């Protein structure tokens, strides 16, 4: 079930650069469902499911496993940790949040009093309290270079929505897992890439795409929302269906793939939205520019409060996306 | 005469010759008494057969907003100032026609790549805007476009959307067009249609016309600003294109004669002519001149709602333009 797969993947620790625990979960889930699985030098998990037809195209579908976090840069005499951002984590959103390290050590992120009249707090104004009374005690729990992420916290909201950290982008990982499970005797070859280091510049997908040399690229990711007070753009709503990306900062979707997604949605009878994002990027940007160029698009799950500890999605959009993807791998 | 010809004619305030010549030719075919007065207004009089009917004057202005050349730079660019109200923010990256030869020119601006954050915010004012006609130096620029040459936006007349038109100078060539229609009507009283000059620089032409015409009733046909789209709160929208001719009870320069105003609304209602009340006290126009010249006159203003009125692309709805003429003529017949 999509919801169970999602919950399993959301629980895995996996900051940018240390995605192996997420990859392990994916391997477990996909075991017996695919033709091959391998891990490359950057930790990308590359999964193949061969197409039935002789002239099958290779479709690379990428979903990044990594999650934004805080890396410890200093442990102070009093036992407090100083941190630096891993990926786009905002000091304002992480302040007063609970975080965890790889071994489960918890910490509370706190903010120094604002004595300089700053409009926005900076990372250097934050510290992490892990309950240690001294540097020595802290060092028993945490080392410099360790990374903390938002503590897992899966919350059902209303009938269809769920909130959790790391929804960006485990919801897409869940979608890709389900696609690889459900696809059966499909026309084209699917190369599922559970990619790494997206949050710091699409680094995993770039090398994966070079190695895979796909005919068609598709990224699965979350996108921003435009349906809460004073937020109008992008004009994308939760629960109104997955969004086909027209463009963002990293990529203008190739017309071929974009239109195939619309076609797939129509064939699946799923309503989709049209997404124009003035910022942000996905693995699609890296895939499209690989080698001599790869026709590439992105299918997005609308997600509120992206990069906060409560990223909210609507499960109906996930279900719709899965149906679209099952059609897409036949039509593309 | 059609609206395309009228809006593409060159006529910034003080330089109405081309428009006047066009209108004069058209008016002469419609009435015997066509003259040009001391202020450059084109006055078209038609004697009535029934002395019991009141004498009515209609006015519309021939002039439009534009530009005037004020200098030349070393590298052959033209310095200029607006004639009438042109927001400097609408002139960047637009096309103009300059001078007697109607030379083509463009208004450029420093590329976005070269702008500092302050440049991006700061409005380019008329000290920092230039017309480029392609001249190599000041001498060539001066020879082609001497000081005092006029310029206007170079905007073709284009119908678009559902019955809309985008053009230059809809304010107030729509009124000019409709005055010609009024001259065709069979009103039995004395009728005068006056095409006035220099409205955009302070109602200057109409002041002279009002002084020598001394009508009982003066009805002004205008274009007025409509702000119905985008972020403008409803109370500031003034009027809506497509909802008919706008009848003013008051603007910043004159108050309509109450009886005349009510009569116009009633005629519109009786004849099913699309109309709306102008829902704001904004703008000022030639009605003020007629109301206050000599012994005074009863006035009212009928306006065509017009979006982006002080830019190179005025937008109006053709049905509203027709409604303006229809109401004016129906009003005459009701007298």
């Amino acid at each position, binding site marked *: 079930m999509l919801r169970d797969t999602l919950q399993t993947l959301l629980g895995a620790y996996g900051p940018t650069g240390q995605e192996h625990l997420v990859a392990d979960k994916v391997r477990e889930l996909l075991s017996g469902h695919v033709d091959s699985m391998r891990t490359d030098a950057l930790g990308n998990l590359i999964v193949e499911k061969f197409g039935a037809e002789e002239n099958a195209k290779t479709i690379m579908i990428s979903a990044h496993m990594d999650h934004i976090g805080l890396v410890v840069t200093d442990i102070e005499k009093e036992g407090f940790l100083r941190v630096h951002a891993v990926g786009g984590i905002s000091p304002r959103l992480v302040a007063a949040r609970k975080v965890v390290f790889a071994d489960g050590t918890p910490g509370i992120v706190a903010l120094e009093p604002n004595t300089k009249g700053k409009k926005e707090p900076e990372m250097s104004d934050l510290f992490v309290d892990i309950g240690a009374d001294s540097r020595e005690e802290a060092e028993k729990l945490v080392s410099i270079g360790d990374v903390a992420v938002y503590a897992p916290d899966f919350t059902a909201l209303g009938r269809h929505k769920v909130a959790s950290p790391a929804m960006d982008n485990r919801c897409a990982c869940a979608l890709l897992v389900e696609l690889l499970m459900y696809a059966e005797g499909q026309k084209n070859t699917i190369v599922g890439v559970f990619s790494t280091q997206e949050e710091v510049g699409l680094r995993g997908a770039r090398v994966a795409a070079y190695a895979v040399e796909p005919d068609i690229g598709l990224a699965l990711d979350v996108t921003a929302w*435009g349906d809460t007070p004073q937020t109008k*753009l992008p*004009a994308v709503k939760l629960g109104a269906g997955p969004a086909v990306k*027209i*463009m963002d900062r990293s990529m*203008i979707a*190739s*017309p071929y793939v974009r239109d195939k997604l619309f076609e797939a949605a129509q064939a699946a009878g799923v309503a989709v939205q*049209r*997404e*124009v994002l*003035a910022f942000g990027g996905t693995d699609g940007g890296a895939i499209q*520019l690989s*080698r001599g*160029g790869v026709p590439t698009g992105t299918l997005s799950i609308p997600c509120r409060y992206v990069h906060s500890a409560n990223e909210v999605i609507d499960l109906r959009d996930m279900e719709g996306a899965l149906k679209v993807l099952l059609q897409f791998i036949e039509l593309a | 005469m059609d609206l395309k010809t009228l809006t593409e004619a060159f006529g910034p305030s003080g330089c109405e010759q081309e428009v006047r010549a066009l209108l004069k030719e058209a008016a002469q075919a419609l009435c015997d008494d066509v003259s040009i007065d001391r202020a450059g207004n084109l006055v078209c009089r038609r004697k009535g057969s029934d002395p019991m009917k009141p004498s009515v004057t209609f006015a519309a202005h021939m002039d439009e907003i534009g530009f005037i050349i004020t200098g030349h730079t070393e590298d052959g*660019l033209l310095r200029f100032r607006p004639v009438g109200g042109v*927001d400097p*923010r*609408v*002139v960047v*990256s*637009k*096309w103009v026609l300059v001078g007697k030869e109607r030379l*083509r*020119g*463009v208004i*450029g601006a*420093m*590329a*976005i*790549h*070269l702008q500092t954050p302050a440049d*991006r*915010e*700061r*409005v*380019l004012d008329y000290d920092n805007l230039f017309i*480029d006609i*392609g*001249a190599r130096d000041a001498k*060539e620029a001066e020879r082609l476009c001497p000081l005092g040459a006029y310029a206007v936006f170079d905007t073709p007349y*284009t119908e*678009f*959307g*559902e*019955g809309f038109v*985008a053009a230059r100078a809809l304010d107030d060539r729509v009124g000019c067009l409709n005055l010609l229609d009024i001259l065709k009507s069979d009103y039995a009283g004395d009728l005068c249609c006056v095409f006035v000059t220099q409205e955009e620089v302070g109602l200057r032409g109409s002041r002279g016309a009002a002084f020598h015409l001394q009508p009982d009733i003066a009805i002004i046909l205008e274009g007025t*600003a409509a*702000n119905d*789209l*985008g972020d403008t709160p409803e109370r500031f929208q003034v009027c809506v294109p497509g909802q008919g001719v706008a009848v003013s009870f008051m603007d910043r320069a004159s108050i309509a004669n109450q009886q005349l105003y009510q009569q116009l609304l009633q005629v519109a209602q009786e004849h099913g002519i699309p109309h709306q009340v102008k829902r704001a006290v*904004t703008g000022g126009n030639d009605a003020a001149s007629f109301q206050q010249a000599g012994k005074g006159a009863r006035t009212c203003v009928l306006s065509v709602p017009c*979006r*982006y009125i*002080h*830019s*190179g*692309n005025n*937008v109006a*709805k053709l049905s509203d333009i027709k409604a303006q003429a229809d109401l004016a003529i129906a009003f005459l017949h009701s007298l």
Partner: protein
Amino acid sequence: MRTEDFLRDITAIRGLSGDEGPVADFVADAFRPYCDEVWVDQMHNVIARKKGGGPKVMFAAHLDEIGLMVVNIEEDGSLRLGQVGGVDPRILPGQRVWVYGKDRLLGIIGAKAPHLLSAEERSKNYQREDLYVDLGLPPQRVREQVQIGDQVQLEHRYTALQNGRVAVKTSDDRACVAMMFEALKQLQNLRHEADLYFVATAQEEVGTRGAITSAFALDPDFAVALDVCHADTPGAPAWRTHKLDSLVASMGPFIHPVLRGKLVEVAKEQNISLQTAVVPRSTFTDADGIGEARAGVPTVLLELPLKNMHTTVETLDSKNLREGGRLLAQFAVAVNEGWEDELWT
């Protein structure tokens, strides 16, 4: 076709970054009679090959254009705008645009009227977010016609000014595509050893993306990137601008010095005057993308001065189209195997 006519026609054709299909087809058709083979790749790069047995030379000028995109449709039927590439919001109020909905629709860009703004608001430029497109249609009709993501193209007018100067949108960089067209015509009567690839690249305005992929695919020995640079404009910093009337050969770490020397030499022989620009780092042209392809491609950058870049009145001296075409053709003739050995001397 006269090169000026080519420029007039090509600048009108739709080709916003990422969706350059229509303009790519136009270029392919125009280049075909002068080449051995022409194809359009999946990124919409047009690649025109004129065969030779010698070194592989890539000429690149981008065919995409900056523009706008519908990001939202308001209840009153007005359209809100995003941008494709860097559009100066100052040029937008009062501008006409083409909206590519189901049909091509004319729109006018509107803004809140100045008399409704506070004095402080009036002292600042409108931002793109403040503006909207007015289609003159009832909201229902707008929704039938237009979708989020539809492209919005700025008004095209080819305006001939005095002294052979021309103002027209998208001279950046289709004037340089026109230069390649001129070069191809001149090459009909010339013999060349090199294997020539004239590439009209896609997606330059969003990060030289077409140049990156086409240079990888073609794997050239040498490359000449063609783009526009800034001509003198009031208020602009002098070191960033050049005279309008002659071409510019840039120098700096992204430009191969020996290859640049070759270009300058050819210009001298042909009596074509060149200005020099100094670019200390990224050139923000296709030269950057090509230079870093595969193991690296020695690349030079030839630039055409343009006033009012990224506006609807981009202004150039049409004489440069012919001079530039001639320089490219003669450079193509001059390339030989021997150059490879001189590259790092």
